[in-house]
């Protein structure tokens, strides 16, 4: 039987579908890839609906999209509690202890994540214009995400956080002290991120490098290494100027956002 492969998440879909059942990406439009190889994250059509486990997720709006999730009995999602836009009164909430409370407090991260349990509806959005990026994670995948970028993760994902190695990376990397890490075990999971502006993804080969603005980094496979590298710029009689870029080394995917805060020029 003929199937259509989603170019974003590689899931197989039935013929005739216009958007992927796993990540909502349009199947009937050509992928947008720049000449240098950055693939634009699929712009999810308004009211796009896709499934995970027995639940559904619908993306609404195109300036600051809302992810509305209809949770089935037995399904749950976790999130930072301040991204909930609305919920039905009967949806129970619980707290997910992340561990490392003092470290997270120092890193400016919430040390408790909230969990919403089905059945019922709950909706999430962030605080600026951008895109919801849907990343289905297949079993045994590890993804590192810039802190405060994740919108919601499904119950089958294991959440942890990792310290960004190296003082230079912490001070000049633009990503704070920690990154969120999402791991799948035997079951696939679904991760929703919010990227400010537009989001682009590139897959690096083994040893391939790319330099990115540290504030623009959004996510990467854990196999990709990230280091802050100083760039010296001579400005003639006025002396020197330096800035830092994040050097990403493959193999794996790297995701960046087009709206960011630049840190670390001196």
């Amino acid at each position, binding site marked *: 039987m003929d199937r259509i492969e989603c170019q974003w998440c590689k899931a197989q879909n039935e013929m005739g579908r216009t958007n992927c059942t796993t990540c909502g990406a349009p199947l009937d439009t050509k992928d947008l890839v720049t000449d240098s190889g950055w693939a634009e994250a699929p712009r999810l059509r*308004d*009211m796009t609906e896709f499934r995970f486990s027995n639940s559904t997720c619908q993306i609404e709006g195109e*300036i600051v999209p809302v992810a509305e999730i209809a949770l089935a009995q037995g399904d749950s999602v976790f999130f930072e509690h301040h991204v909930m836009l609305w*919920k*039905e009164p009967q949806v*129970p909430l619980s707290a997910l202890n992340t561990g490392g409370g003092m470290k997270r407090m120092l890193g400016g991260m919430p040390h408790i*994540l909230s969990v919403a349990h089905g059945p019922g*509806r709950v909706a999430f959005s962030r*605080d600026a*214009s951008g895109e919801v990026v849907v990343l289905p994670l297949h079993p045994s995948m590890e993804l590192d995400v810039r802190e405060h970028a994740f919108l919601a993760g499904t119950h089958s994902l294991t959440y942890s956080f990792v310290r960004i190695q190296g003082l230079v990376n912490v001070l000049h990397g633009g990503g704070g002290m920690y990154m969120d890490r999402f791991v799948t075990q035997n079951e696939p999971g679904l991760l929703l991120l919010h990227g400010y502006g537009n989001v682009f993804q590139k897959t690096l080969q083994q040893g391939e490098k790319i330099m990115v603005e540290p504030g623009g980094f959004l996510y990467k496979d854990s196999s990709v290494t990230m280091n802050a590298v100083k760039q010296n710029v001579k400005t003639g009689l006025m002396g020197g100027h330096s800035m830092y870029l994040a050097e990403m080394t493959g193999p794996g995917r790297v995701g960046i956002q087009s709206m960011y805060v630049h840190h670390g020029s001196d």
Partner: protein
Amino acid sequence: MTMPPAQAAYTCPYCRMASDGGGGTCPACGAPVDLRLKVSDSGWVEQPPIRDLAHIRFGRSTCQVSGTYVPVAEMALHDDDWVYFSHHVLLHTDASVRLGTLPLKGGWQRMRAGMPLIMMRAQGPGHIAFSADAPGETLAVPLSAGRAIDVVEHRFLVATGNVAYQWQNSNIWFTTQDGDDEEWHYPLGKTIDQFAATGGNGLLLLHAPGNTFIRDLAPRQRILVQPSGLIWKDQSVRMFLHFEYPHGQYWFSSSRYQAKATWLTLEGPGRVAIQSVFERPEGSGYVRRTSGATTQQW
């Protein structure tokens, strides 16, 4: 020869005003005509952005909304018509437009609440344009004679002269304990604006960051929303605070403090509008006093 049937009257699903529906956009609020309703599975209707360069009529004047990221509302004011607005939303004006001030009562309280002390008024003839400072949607809310709505502060863009404006305390607050200090929080803002069409039909323009969704609540139907996500509501909709404390494995993760969810309960009947951008809720800590709230311990 058979004549085609006369076009049935069209009632806009967003502003509920009737028109002939022939112009492509609703002449009262600018919403596209014939657009398939975008309704989420849960019942929120996405308010369609006003089509670029759509015309809206009021009095003997027109308003044209242009742009899609941070829309501009440009008005062609007739001699007899006037509008009022906060001075910081004025983008450009013809020299022929007569600008003046519209004094407001309660200056000291408005200053404390961070609200502008005066409104400006603009009288035709001429063109004048307004825009806000965030990517989002400009909403036209036509008010039929006698209708009044409550609008969250800082969402107001411009209103026609026959729309009466007043403001009052939102009466949505809570306090938290911080050592010996008691900290006050106003999740909806300290005040709330009220607009009412008194002298015939009026037009109110609002600007909301992000996308906008509206929903009609049935009598006694409740929904929990982020307080700073509310844009406007019918005055028949009740609102009060609701605190939820998620259950955690340990005492410190039972989140009486950090992960407490502060909601605004909206109870029908009536229409409510929310935006997808909202401020991070403030006020971690033990809730001591409230303006009236319900609590749920999960």
